[in-house]
């Protein structure tokens, strides 16, 4: 039976619908942390939707943050285009990684690259059957449906490797454009499928884009290779009737922000940032049309004291709380598996203490 959530307690939902909220919501990309908090394995989080959902739900109940459980991983694309994936294991892994041959290693592979078939009757590639099962759990619990995909560039990197794509952008740009074309069509296909199954207005896709950061590529290459495809991806997503996109602009993107500004995010979108982009800049750039989210440094959450976390959260809240469309306090990326629980508690307490409206 579908459970209906008390909408007044859904702070993020209130922000999305333009309603007032009592305080700054706290949201997290919590995956491996939920495994360690509840005693299941990190691999379960990525391979068993039921266990993953329950672990995340239980973790949210324990700590009281605002974001819903979700399913996704940053190396999306390789498995879906035919490579193998290795589930995380051991003390130092937090997410699945690609194993063995990538879908694109040669120029011939680019020519042969095909769209994976997408059909909801069991013909889904890679992690998508798991994502679909997870989304059905979200629906059952009355949550927003959050399919998690990479941006066009990041998924292309996952398919072809960062070094290869970097070289080809300068030496063989046509190959990169061909990969980006296929990847963008694939991502639009996935979002179309989710919109058909769950109803477009219920879907809030998450598009994560770490690989196009200025730690890797120049703003010039971003404009040439990332902007056109990412813009198309967002435009087509919104044309489906999806109202909100959560775009995680991960890493050092400050020089790319003029281009990101050209990309529609929905009404409002949610744009989450890594620590590298100052929140005041984020508010100035996107605040008039998007909810701003971010950007506590994950390594500080993992290694810093709760006093330091509290201070950083206070600064973040002071810098972004009054953004026109609202602010969500978040880590700058995934909450590290080994974050001390007291540091997550410190985030939530900081919101209660400094984030009241």
């Amino acid at each position: 039976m579908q459970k209906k959530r008390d909408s007044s307690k859904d702070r993020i939902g209130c922000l999305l619908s333009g309603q007032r909220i009592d305080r700054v919501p706290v949201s997290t990309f919590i995956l491996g942390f939920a495994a360690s908090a509840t005693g299941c394995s990190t691999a379960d989080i990525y391979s068993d939707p039921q266990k993953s959902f329950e672990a995340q739900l239980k973790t949210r109940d324990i700590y009281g943050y605002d974001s819903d459980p979700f399913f996704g991983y940053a190396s999306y694309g390789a498995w879906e285009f035919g490579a193998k994936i290795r589930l995380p294991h051991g003390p130092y892994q937090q997410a699945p990684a690609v194993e063995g041959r990538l879908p694109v290693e040669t120029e011939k592979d680019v020519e042969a690259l095909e769209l994976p078939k997408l059909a909801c009757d069991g013909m889904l590639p890679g992690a998508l059957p798991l994502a679909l099962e997870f989304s059905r759990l979200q629906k059952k619990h009355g949550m927003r449906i959050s399919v998690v995909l990479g941006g066009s560039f990041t998924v292309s990197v996952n398919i072809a490797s960062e070094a290869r794509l970097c070289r080809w952008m300068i030496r063989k740009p046509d190959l990169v454009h061909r990969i980006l074309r296929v990847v963008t069509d694939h991502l639009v296909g996935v979002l179309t499928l989710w919109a058909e199954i769950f109803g477009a207005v219920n879907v809030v896709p998450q598009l994560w884009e770490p690989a196009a950061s200025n730690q890797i590529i120049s703003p010039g290459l971003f404009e040439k290779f990332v902007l056109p495809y990412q813009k198309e991806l967002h435009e087509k997503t919104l044309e489906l009737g999806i109202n909100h996109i959560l775009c995680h602009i991960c890493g050092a993107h400050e020089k790319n922000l003029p281009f990101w500004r050209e990309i529609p995010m929905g009404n409002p979108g949610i744009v989450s940032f890594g620590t590298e982009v100052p929140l005041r800049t984020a508010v100035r750039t996107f605040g008039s049309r998007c909810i701003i989210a971010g950007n506590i440094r994950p390594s500080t959450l993992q290694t810093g004291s709760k006093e330091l976390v509290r201070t950083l959260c206070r600064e973040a809240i002071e810098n972004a709380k009054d953004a026109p469309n609202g602010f969500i306090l978040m880590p700058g990326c995934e909450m590290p598996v080994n974050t001390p629980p007291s540091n997550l508690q410190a985030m939530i307490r900081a919101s209660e203490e400094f984030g009241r409206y």
Partner: protein
Amino acid sequence: MPHALFKKLSEAVLKMDEEAAVELSRKVLDEGLDAYSAIIEGLAEGMSQAGTLYDGGEYYVPELLLCADALYAGLDILRPHIKTGEAKFRGKVVIGVVEGDVHDIGKNLVKTMFEAEGWEVYDLGKDVKVERFSQEQQRVGACVVALSALMTTSMLAMPKIIESVKSADPGAIVLVGGAPLSPEIAAGYGADGYADTAKNAVVTARNLLSASNS
């Protein structure tokens, strides 16, 4: 003053021109010039300038990778012609991406910078087990161990690696780098140095080594 050919070699690397690097390296040999000087004053100088442009935000990873391709194309031709005893390595460095992490693009750039500066590099690759760093450092007698991590969770392997390296050889210098690291975290882990770019990694290693030898 570097020979005009060496200057051109440097420019070939800086301009990411692999063909020119090959052609000029052959010319160095044809003209009977010293291969080692051509490497140090030509190819390596070009790579060093590329690193400076990266630090200044003019070059990014794609440009550095292509500079490295030109560097290696020239090295392949010149290295076999270095006269015995002429090449003086600055030192030996063991490098790798720590256990749990498969992101090696940063490590590969650091490796290139070390090689360009004349270090003997022992590359353990990615997702390297904790104990392998110490074993390799002991095997080759490296003075520097360089650790890379991109993931917040995998960087937790670093203090264990540092402990293992230091307990086997307290004089070994350990450098760390990667997106989630900071000078404070590096110090907390017991690392001797932290570097935020590939070029700085080599500069830091050089400075630490020179301080430990003085």
